[in-house]
């Protein structure tokens, strides 16, 4: 894992000192709210529906056990004993007091963390594949590039006041788990015909009120040119992106309005001018950063399934259920990747108590080289677990209600905080997610249904990624009542697609029934091993539409 050098540590500590002084001046009245608000937002402190919310950056979703313990301590000391993992691979504390926020940030700095650039019109936390460095299908560890982007984009003076916020995602694997086609810039590592590894650069994707799938601006970018090319894109966006209308200010609108060809022309011209500048990455710099992400000291184990794992799989039904859904293939023989579901029935999706965070940190130390990842689907990951240890890991997780066997299933729902917490929301997300999860509580049925990605947003800003849910749910306010509009057929992976609107919005009670009806319709229509998405793509919207609206 990347460790802060003296410069990293110093700039974070200096920022804490600055913010501490700013809070003091605000509380004394020396700064007005209008003066203070942009300063607190630059430090990740929002005022939400009930309280201040602190959004902590988790660079590319990678945490050490020490950092996770640090977060648990902050949850206990300054919040109400828990935290909420988000679709941006970040963590939000929902009940921070302004007067204590500087202390919370100082504690974060002690574990090499901060809340800088988690708000505002700047380059936000770069996100990536939660299986980075572990995935069997990976070409290269994308975190090396995420870290290079982090260093370049942190306090980048030219890009601190962009037309709008800017999000970059990187995948090092052909099976995209980082949703790179729905980000402002998506980077997909691949090999060219000569066998060299570089990036496909995708630009102008995004969700929100005007969703777009990103377009490829360059098929292959050599690695050493990454920062020059990113800088060229950002520069073109900074210059030509719209500042007259906040709703049209994202780069996706620019790309849509001028077209990808014109965008490419401008970017390539800028790139040609700066390609050989100081931004060109020397091999030794890349190697220095890459050294931080060297594989942990794996044991040399035989290929194939470890006997302890196979035995438990055969003899313990509950373990087998969990292992089928919550483990993934590792690149290292004898190892597995474990996804810890934060979607236990009855709990808000993505929430973890301080006790659970501590437990996960302990389990990570014992079984996964002290490493934890955050997924954009609001779960956690132990990236490097020996197969032989899987039964013990499962038991340890189970003791803390962290072994729900539902990864990728109907109850593994992405939900934004919604109207229960968010000042922007029109409708609640979490209670709806909880009701839907309850409807699919029967594991036999849930496993039979198979992969089904339900994603809920409480407003058009789409933090819950509803546009790319196999079933997407968007909360709307109709004359003071919560209604939900359904979309079908969305996908965030390498076959990225935006969902199609099913029909008029439904009230909350009908929405839960409607999800059930959609699933039943799929079960009747599916052929062989088709997933919900496959069946939808084959048969289209009509049969589902009829099932929901025909009776009305």
């Amino acid at each position, binding site marked *: 894992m990347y460790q802060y050098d003296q410069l990293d540590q110093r700039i974070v500590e200096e920022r804490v000192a600055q913010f501490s002084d700013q809070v003091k001046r*605000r*509380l*004394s*009245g020396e700064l007005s*709210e209008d003066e203070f608000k942009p300063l607190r937002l630059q430090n990740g402190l929002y*005022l939400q*529906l*009930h*309280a*201040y919310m602190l959004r902590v950056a988790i660079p590319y979703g990678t945490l050490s056990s020490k950092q996770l313990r640090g977060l648990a301590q902050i949850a206990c000391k300054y919040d*109400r*004993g*828990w935290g909420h993992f988000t679709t941006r691979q970040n963590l939000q504390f*929902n*009940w*921070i*007091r*302004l*007067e204590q926020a500087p202390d919370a940030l100082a504690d974060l700095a002690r574990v090499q963390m901060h809340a800088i650039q988690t708000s505002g019109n700047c380059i936000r936390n770069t996100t990536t594949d939660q299986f980075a460095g572990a995935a069997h299908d990976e070409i290269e560890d994308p975190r090396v590039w995420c870290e290079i982007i982090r260093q370049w984009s942190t306090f980048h003076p030219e890009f601190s006041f962009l037309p709008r916020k800017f999000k970059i995602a990187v995948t090092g694997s052909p099976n995209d788990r980082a949703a790179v086609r729905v980000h402002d810039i998506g980077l997909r590592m691949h090999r060219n015909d000569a066998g060299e590894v570089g990036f496909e650069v995708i630009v102008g994707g995004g969700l929100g009120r005007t969703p777009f799938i990103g377009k490829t601006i360059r098929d292959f970018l050599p690695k050493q040119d990454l920062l020059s090319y990113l800088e060229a894109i950002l520069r073109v966006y900074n210059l030509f992106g719209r500042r007259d209308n906040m709703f049209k200010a994202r780069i996706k609108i620019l790309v849509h309005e001028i077209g990808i060809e014109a965008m490419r022309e401008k970017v390539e011209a800028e790139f040609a001018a700066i390609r050989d500048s100081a931004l060109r990455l020397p091999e030794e710099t890349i190697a220095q950063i890459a050294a931080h992400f060297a594989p942990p000291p794996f044991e040399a184990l035989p290929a194939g399934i470890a006997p302890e794992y196979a035995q438990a799989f055969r003899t313990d039904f509950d373990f087998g259920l969990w292992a089928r859904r919550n483990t993934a293939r590792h690149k290292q023989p004898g190892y597995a990747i474990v996804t810890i579901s934060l979607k236990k029935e*009855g*709990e*808000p999706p993505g*929430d973890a*108590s301080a006790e659970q965070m501590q437990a996960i940190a302990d389990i990570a130390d014992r079984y996964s080289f002290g490493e934890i990842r955050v997924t954009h689907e609001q779960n956690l990951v132990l990236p490097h677990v020996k197969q032989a240890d899987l039964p013990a890991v499962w038991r340890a997780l189970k003791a803390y209600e962290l072994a729900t066997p539902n990864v990728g299933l109907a109850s593994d729902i992405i939900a934004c905080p919604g*109207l*229960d*917490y968010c000042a922007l929301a029109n409708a*609640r997300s*979490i*209670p709806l997610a*909880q009701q839907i999860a309850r409807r699919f509580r029967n594991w036999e049925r849930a496993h039979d249904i198979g992969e089904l990605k339900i994603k809920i947003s409480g407003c058009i800003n789409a933090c819950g990624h509803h546009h790319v849910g196999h079933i997407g749910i968007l909360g709307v306010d*109709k*004359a*003071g*009542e*919560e209604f939900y509009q359904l979309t079908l057929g969305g996908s965030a992976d390498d076959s990225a697609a935006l969902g199609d609107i099913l029909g008029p919005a439904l009230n909350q009670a009908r929405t839960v029934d409607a999800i059930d009806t959609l699933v039943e319709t799929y079960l009747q229509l599916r052929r062989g091993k088709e997933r919900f998405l496959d069946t939808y793509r084959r048969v289209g919207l009509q049969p589902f539409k009829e099932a929901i609206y025909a009776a009305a």
Partner: protein
Amino acid sequence: MAKAPRLDNHPQVITANHLATGDVVYLTRVASWSRDIGEATVAPNVQAGAALLAVAQAQAKMNIVIDPYLIPVDTSVSPPRPIQFRERIRAQGPTTAGRTSDAAREDRHVSV
């Protein structure tokens, strides 16, 4: 789609967020602030609420609260119940179920 009802003639209370803590607060009868909407002072309508709002805005200037505003309430129940759904959630805390949500709802109804 039904039109939103006009709410100006409903009784009104003043709400804001407490600057130092961020807590949802209501202007009380003694021109102080409480987390408990039951302690809020109630104006019979928006016109009458304007005078209360002036008091609240003065307190915002004194850096006690942020962004005070009037909300319509139903006074046929006790404590008064906000008419708007969003304000009911602000008054009562998150409506979500679960362990973390129980923690979120603790600490309500304490005067500040």
